[in-house]
């Protein structure tokens, strides 16, 4: 029971950190995604009427929400881990009577919380601004959780390995952001010429955007099962990787 109590407090600490820094952790990504919806959707939407049967301002909403959530979950856990390591207050957690799996879960909860706050806020705003629907709520909920577990875990791993702040921002800006932009947020990959269409299927974020789109609009370039399968197939090893680092103490303990 001792370890469970510790895990709850660690999860609470991680959510408290997000809440205390809410202007940076929640408000800023929500505003920047809303600007995308307004600028690209509402202004460009007059020229690009529909993608398939979906209006353009609604078409971009799922991808923008997915982008904002995964970037926030990654950044959250990469920064919380790196800071805890560099300022050594991770020692208070490592020396506590918690199992490694409890530490992993406690940290991942922070990324989930931040991602869900952002996703929820953006969904609410998109309902008002674009009238986007909620076609398959269960698929949407599962997609959000899997995406957030994947990127919060990956952020944890990067935060544990990072030697400097630059390393965490490098992964965010050079890997995640470009993949998110070419993941079919602003267009349907079916419209791309070969080989770009085929190459898009190697981008993991493409599947997350597709399953978000299925959840919200009921439309997707690929099967929902394939999208959920790929996301889960990445989320599970990412989580286990983070768990392995806590279990072995590699990079966490000298």
């Amino acid at each position: 029971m001792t370890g469970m109590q510790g895990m709850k407090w660690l999860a609470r600490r991680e959510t408290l950190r997000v809440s205390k820094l809410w202007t940076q952790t929640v408000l800023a990504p929500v505003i920047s995604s809303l600007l995308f919806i307004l600028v690209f959707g509402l202004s460009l939407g007059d020229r690009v009427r529909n993608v398939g049967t979906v209006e353009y301002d609604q078409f971009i909403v799922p991808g923008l929400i997915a982008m904002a959530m995964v970037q926030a979950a990654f950044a959250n856990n990469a920064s919380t881990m790196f800071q805890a390591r560099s300022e050594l207050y991770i020692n208070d957690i490592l020396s506590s009577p918690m199992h490694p799996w409890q530490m992993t879960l406690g940290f991942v909860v922070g990324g989930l919380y931040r991602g869900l706050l952002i996703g929820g806020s953006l969904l609410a705003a998109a309902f008002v601004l674009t009238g986007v629907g909620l076609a398959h709520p269960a698929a949407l909920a599962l997609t959000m959780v899997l995406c957030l577990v994947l990127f919060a875990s990956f952020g944890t791993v990067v935060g544990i390995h990072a030697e400097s702040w630059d390393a965490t921002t490098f992964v965010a800006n050079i890997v995640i952001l470009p993949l998110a932009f070419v993941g079919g947020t602003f267009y349907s990959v079916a419209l791309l010429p070969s080989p770009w269409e085929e190459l898009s299927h190697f981008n993991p974020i493409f599947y997350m955007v597709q399953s978000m789109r299925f959840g919200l609009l009921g439309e997707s370039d690929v099967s929902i099962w394939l999208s959920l399968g790929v996301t889960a197939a990445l989320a599970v090893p990412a989580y286990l990787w983070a768990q392995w680092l806590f279990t072995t103490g590699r990079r966490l303990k000298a």
Partner: protein
Amino acid sequence: MYRDDERCRAPAALVPQRAPALELRGLTKRYDDGTLAVEDFDLQVHDGAFFGLLGPNGAGKTTVISAVCNLIRVTAGEVLVFGEPITSLRARSWIGLAEQDINLDRFLSVRETLIYHGGYFGMRREQAEERAEEMIDAFDLRAKRDVRAPKLSGGQRRRLLLARALMHRPRLVILDEPTAGVDYELRQELWRYIRRLHAEGTTILLTTHYLEEAEALCEEIALIRGGKLLARDSAEGLRERYGATNLAGVYVKAMAEV
């Protein structure tokens, strides 16, 4: 093999029959860069002791402490706390650590620092809140209760670090140079608190560079260098053994022997 060296055994009068508060058996730590910090290191600290660990920088004091607190990957050997291996959660819940570096969570206020630490160590919210208020008063932090750690003075941070270590009522308190860089007044204050804690039955393991601190506080002192235990005894016993008038003399002679 230093484990069989009679100089390293606790004097018989100081060893009770209960499980020792801390027992290290053949502890070895080689860091990833190849540095051998401690090798085949044995140590027993009895329940209720006030034990000092003295040695120069790089002697292995912090490595020993880190091994006890699950902060390093031990290369070989065993660490037992009150008879339980350190891998058990029970054993870890009995230890309170105040590290040499001030490693306070920058996002938490004084009160939150204490409450969250209590939570990590298994305390329920009401228990933790009540205990935190006690610690805030005991360490004279009432005026700073809702201030975050980075806004505290050096002395206040040091007091909070000690309060955090004691928050969950540990049976074994490990203080790694608790008075390093603090002024005379605060040092006296911390000494008073540590003495009271020991008088209440808590086992204390203290590392320090201040020899007069070890002499004034510790019932038993171990001298270590290069990851090896050189000698252990009461301050008086060490003075006799080395024919010195004070602990500084003992220290100089012991270190010169290596």
